[in-house]
């Protein structure tokens, strides 16, 4: 309670300073007068009395100081005064203010913007109840394959027998065609267990969740609409529950609508859910072997991940292993990591890179301040003499800069705020749940922290340097404080060297990522992507249930596509086979004459159906034998073509030509291998090509998810229109999933690395520009301080090139340590990048060498220009100026 009255008194004290000062003067004068009178009365003469009075009072000024400080909030007032002084000096030098402010604001803004992504991904809670207890799991079924799926039978047993999860739910993504309202559209849907919504803690906003009995095959013709779909296609009809929709030709009853904020736990924007609808009895008896791609579970309270893993593994060990899949391992990760793991890694790299750019901006501002303050050496020495302690002076200088820091921070925050929408739109981070980047307390604290840190960083070093002035030296009249100047130059050079080191680290990182991305996207694709256009469609309508109408459609489509003007060649294959391809597409097959030992690993491969022209359209080279031909149809002998990966893995020393393989079940015929082609990347651009068996589509049965590849020099847009017309003329109700140029398709699949690499290059570029400006500035400053010395040298006979060399040598003294330090740091830090690199070593020597040499050359150039300028000034003029 007492300090509140003190506080109020001090607050009031701020406004009555003048009168208080006078009052104190009066009081003290009164006191001294009275004491002097008493002294006189005690026998001293007036002068002695006065002196004695003053002596017993003590020094007046410190008392007044003390009094003044107690009266108000002295510290705050001093700080405000210093800040105003800083503001004035900022206004006096608009060039400096704008340059420094902008570069700082840019650094803070960019770093904060990327932090919003990281925050949304790693820090913000997922939109589900108690999301930290949610885990995503899968079985990993085969060796040397990225097949992460869970057998339904296992999933059911896990659900029944486990002790560690409150519940499990499974879901698979699908595409379905919605008909009956306006035109047919393709929807992204999911088949999900009835337990999914309760597991996530989500309630439908209209209607209800699936009932347990609806989660069985045969009873599963119900659907829950996503909120967006309900608004867009069904007019937000409040009486929608109970109505029917037609999906893939089948009627479904709508039983509920999801709430607006709900996001499906995956990277697909799911518009509608239907039940998982498995034939549970058959699955448990292992008569059917369907798979589930996503399983989610909620850990019971108090249970750890290790316990859950052990529990599931134990259940698994008690179950019979299907004969063809002996190696089954388990993979469990927190749901957050499953959804956002990649984004988090990229986000951290980018935040670090942006932080480096900010560091360089701070270093530049620091240099600028040092340069400016070197002139203030005398003023600051005087201040020190008048009683300012060094700490006080440093604080004062820091506060002067605080204004700059505050302005830059505010501008940076504004920049980050505005950058959110473009960031989400341009980046590949538009995965579920990341459609908007919230600007919450975390982000603000981060920005404020950055601002504080930057202010300290760029303010401390110059403040310390400059207040180190030797008193006697500095006050010498007519003498420029050379001593403090010299050591300040040292500080400038150290900062410049540090900038070079940082640029090296950043550029090396950018270089490595660029190489990695290049190899991913452009190297060893195995085919020629130019001039290819890909159209995909899903023949899931009721008309295409049987094989015959599907084949007819595909045949006709191929003919018409080929006949389009501008199309050189057309081919048909599975949608999953067209690069970049899908890595869930392998399956087992049998090789004739090889008895599989029980429990041995069966051979696996992809076996897409292709039309004969597929190989020539993609430009896949033939290695042995012959390609598929149009003559290979339902009436001729069954043949296949395999790729090099398969030949190498399963026919190591013998030629595969002439051998027979059987894909699918025992009812399938044995097919003869007639050719071997080279590998194509069809399991995503970052995976090695898998063994593949190409079946002629006329022999293998028509595919449902059709991919049409066309080679044409026409523009994609024009061709797309033509193809849509052709398809519509074949079947007006068949929607087209997508039409894209092959190049675009490939780039989209690596849009994550592409974005990260692009940003890194931009940051490295910014850093280089800022850093070079910094080095140039430092060298210019050094040259200016040495002008007289250089002039003397020239007068004594040095040639221009001697002068240039002299300056360049000093430049080396900055550049070489900077490069070495940078290289060491880069080698140390690039280890952290290793997990994001594809087929590039984190210590790739050519990258390091090229970056180092380039930096050295460019930095030398930045030194050379001031050197040339110094050499050109007339020495006599300079000496005369003294």
């Amino acid at each position, binding site marked *: 309670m007492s300090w509140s009255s*003190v506080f109020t008194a001090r607050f009031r004290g701020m406004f009555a300073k003048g009168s208080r000062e006078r009052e104190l003067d009066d009081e003290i004068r*009164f*006191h001294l007068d009275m004491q002097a009178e008493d002294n006189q009365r005690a026998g001293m003469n007036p002068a002695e009395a006065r002196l004695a009075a003053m002596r017993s009072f003590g020094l007046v000024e410190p008392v007044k100081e003390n009094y003044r400080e107690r009266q108000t909030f002295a510290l705050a007032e001093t700080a405000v005064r210093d800040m105003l002084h800083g503001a004035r000096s900022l206004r006096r030098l608009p060039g400096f203010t704008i340059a420094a402010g902008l570069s700082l604001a840019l650094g803070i803004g960019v770093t904060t913007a990327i932090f919003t992504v990281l925050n949304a991904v790693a820090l913000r809670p997922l939109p589900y109840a108690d999301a930290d207890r949610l885990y995503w799991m899968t079985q990993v079924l085969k060796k040397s394959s990225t097949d992460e799926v869970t057998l339904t039978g296992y999933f059911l047993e896990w659900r029944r027998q486990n002790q560690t999860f409150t519940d499990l739910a499974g879901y698979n993504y699908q595409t379905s065609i919605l008909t009956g309202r306006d035109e047919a559209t393709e929807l992204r849907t999911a088949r999900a267990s009835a337990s999914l919504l309760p597991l996530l803690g989500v309630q439908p906003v209209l209607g209800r969740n699936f009932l347990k009995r609806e989660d069985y095959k045969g009873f599963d013709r119900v659907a829950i609409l996503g909120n967006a779909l309900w608004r867009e296609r069904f007019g937000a009809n409040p009486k929608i529950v109970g109505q029917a929709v037609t999906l893939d030709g089948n009627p479904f009853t709508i039983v509920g609508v999801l709430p607006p904020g709900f996001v499906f736990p995956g990277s697909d924007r799911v518009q509608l859910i239907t039940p998982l609808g498995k034939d549970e009895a058959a699955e448990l008896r292992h008569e059917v072997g369907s798979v589930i791609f996503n399983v989610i579970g909620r850990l019971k309270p108090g249970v750890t991940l290790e316990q859950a893993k052990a529990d599931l593994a134990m259940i698994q060990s008690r179950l019979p292993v299907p004969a063809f899949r002996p190696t089954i391992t388990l993979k469990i990760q927190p749901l957050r990591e499953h959804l956002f793991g990649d984004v988090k890694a990229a986000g951290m790299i980018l935040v670090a890179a942006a932080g480096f750019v900010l560091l360089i901006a701070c270093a530049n501002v620091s240099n600028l301040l040092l340069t400016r303050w070197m002139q203030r050496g005398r003023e600051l020495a005087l201040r020190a003499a008048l009683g300012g302690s060094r700490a006080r002076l440093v604080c004062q200088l820091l506060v002067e800069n605080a204004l700059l820091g505050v302005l830059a921070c505010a501008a940076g925050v504004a920049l980050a705020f505005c950058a959110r929408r473009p960031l989400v739109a341009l980046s590949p981070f538009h995965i579920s749940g990341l459609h908007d980047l919230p600007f919450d307390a975390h982000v603000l604290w981060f920005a404020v922290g950055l601002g504080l840190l930057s202010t300290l960083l760029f303010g401390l070093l110059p403040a310390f340097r400059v207040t180190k002035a030797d008193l006697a030296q500095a006050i010498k009249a007519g003498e420029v404080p050379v001593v403090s100047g010299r050591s300040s130059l040292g500080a400038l050079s150290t900062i410049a060297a540090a900038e070079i080191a940082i640029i090296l680290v950043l550029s090396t990182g950018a270089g490595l990522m660029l190489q990695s991305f290049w190899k991913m996207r452009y190297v060893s694709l195995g085919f020629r992507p130019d001039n290819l256009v890909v159209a995909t469609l899903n023949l899931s309508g009721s008309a295409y249930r049987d094989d015959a109408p599907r084949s007819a459609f595909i045949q006709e489509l191929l003919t018409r596509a080929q006949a389009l003007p501008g199309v050189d060649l057309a081919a048909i294959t599975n949608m999953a086979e067209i690069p970049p391809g899908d890595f869930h597409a392998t399956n087992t097959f049998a090789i004739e004459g090889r008895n599989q030992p029980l429990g041995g690993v069966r051979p696996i491969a992809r076996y897409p159906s292709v039309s004969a022209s597929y190989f020539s359209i993609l430009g896949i080279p033939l290695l042995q034998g012959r390609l598929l031909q149009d003559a290979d149809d339902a009436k001729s002998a069954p043949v296949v073509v395999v790729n090099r990966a398969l030949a190498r893995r399963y026919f190591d020393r013998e030629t595969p030509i002439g051998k027979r393989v059987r894909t699918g079940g025992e009812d399938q015929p044995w097919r003869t291998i007639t050719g071997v082609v080279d590998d194509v990347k069809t399991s995503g651009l970052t995976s090695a090509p898998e063994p593949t068996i190409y079946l002629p589509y006329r022999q293998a049965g028509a595919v449902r998810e059709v991919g049409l590849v066309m080679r044409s020099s026409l523009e994609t847009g024009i061709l797309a229109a033509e193809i849509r017309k052709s398809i519509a003329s074949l079947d007006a109700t068949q929607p087209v999933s997508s039409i894209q140029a092959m190049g675009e398709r490939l780039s989209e699949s690596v849009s994550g690395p592409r974005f990260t690499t692009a940003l890194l290059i931009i940051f490295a570029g910014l850093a280089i520009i800022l850093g070079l400006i910094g080095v140039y500035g430092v060298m210019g400053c050094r040259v200016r301080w040495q002008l007289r010395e250089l002039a003397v040298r020239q007068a004594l006979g040095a040639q221009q090139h001697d002068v240039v060399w002299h300056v360049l040598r000093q430049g080396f003294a900055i550049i070489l340590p900077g490069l070495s330090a940078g290289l060491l740091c880069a080698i140390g830090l690039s280890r952290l990048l290793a997990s994001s690199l594809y087929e590039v070593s984190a210590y790739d020597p050519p990258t390091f060498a090229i970056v180092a040499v380039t930096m050295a050359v460019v930095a030398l150039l930045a030194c050379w220009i001031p050197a040339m300028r110094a050499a050109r000034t007339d020495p006599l003029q300079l000496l005369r100026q003294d």
Partner: protein
Amino acid sequence: MKNEPAERADVLQGTLVLLVLRTLDALGPLHGYGIARRIEQISGDLLQLNQGTLYPCLLRMEQEEWVASKWGASEKNRKAKFYSITPLGRKQLAKETQEWQRMSSTIDRFLGAIPDLSAEDVS
């Protein structure tokens, strides 16, 4: 050099408050000089220190609302600022007196305990 007197006054700062409050309580409203003279008289040579330190102390006490100040006329009809103790000040006086007495009696006991110990040793 500017630090020294302040330090010595700081050491006495705690007791200075006590002394001022006691003086004002006993003698009624006084101006600053009056307080200084009275304290000097009563405490002998304890206040060979600077009288100037009284004023910041009085300011602090005024901020804590232990004393109230008013400008008035001195005996010689000169303008002077008079300080008087407030009820809060009386409470503070009681508290500080109690604390001081407690501390001094603890030290007294300690000092008194030593002859007792030596007496036991002998016996």
